[in-house]
């Protein structure tokens, strides 16, 4: 049980770091934004493992949900910012 959890945790961590790399280095901003949302989502899973359901819910709803939407809202209005 513990090892399983642990390996899932490590997996999550590695995934998060990978996705985070995508966030800061992706060529397209949209990708970066999606990746950031994904990091948040992974984090909320990790929060569950850390016995923090409240935080997990919040992170999922706000961190990965609303924030990502906000990003895209703005992205859509600035044409990616390159001009």
């Amino acid at each position, binding site marked *: 049980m513990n090892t399983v959890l642990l390996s899932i*945790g490590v997996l999550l961590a590695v995934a998060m770091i990978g996705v985070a790399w995508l966030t800061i280095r992706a060529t397209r901003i949209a990708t970066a934004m999606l990746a950031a949302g994904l990091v948040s989502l992974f984090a909320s899973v990790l929060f569950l493992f850390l016995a923090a359901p409240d935080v997990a819910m919040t992170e999922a709803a706000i961190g990965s949900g609303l924030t990502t939407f906000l990003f895209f809202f703005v992205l859509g209005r600035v044409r990616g*910012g390159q001009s």
Partner: protein
Amino acid sequence: MDWIAMATGFILILMGLYGALTNRNILRIIVSFSVANTGVNLVLVAVGYMRGRTAPILDEAVPMTDAVTRIIDPLPQALVLTAIVIGLGVTALMLTYAYKLYEEKGTLDISKCRDLKW
């Protein structure tokens, strides 16, 4: 688990900051900061975590009487809740700024936004 989370959190913070300090696009900076914020939240929760205990919610599984020995520290979680929301607030504000700046200057390159200096 807590070690993993904490280390991941720190790494996320560093990566987020790296992104925020090297990318020129303001949107990317904001996105990077949100990653760093996630990292901070991870660290915070990880500090409150105690091995072998459960969430600080009292129910049938965790009766009131042995809560002290069964639950983990609830305080960091409360802090993280607040921190997340504050983070969203700041992010939203920065996004608004980015939008207005774009309206104003037609670019989101932060190095072009240097009319105040010295």
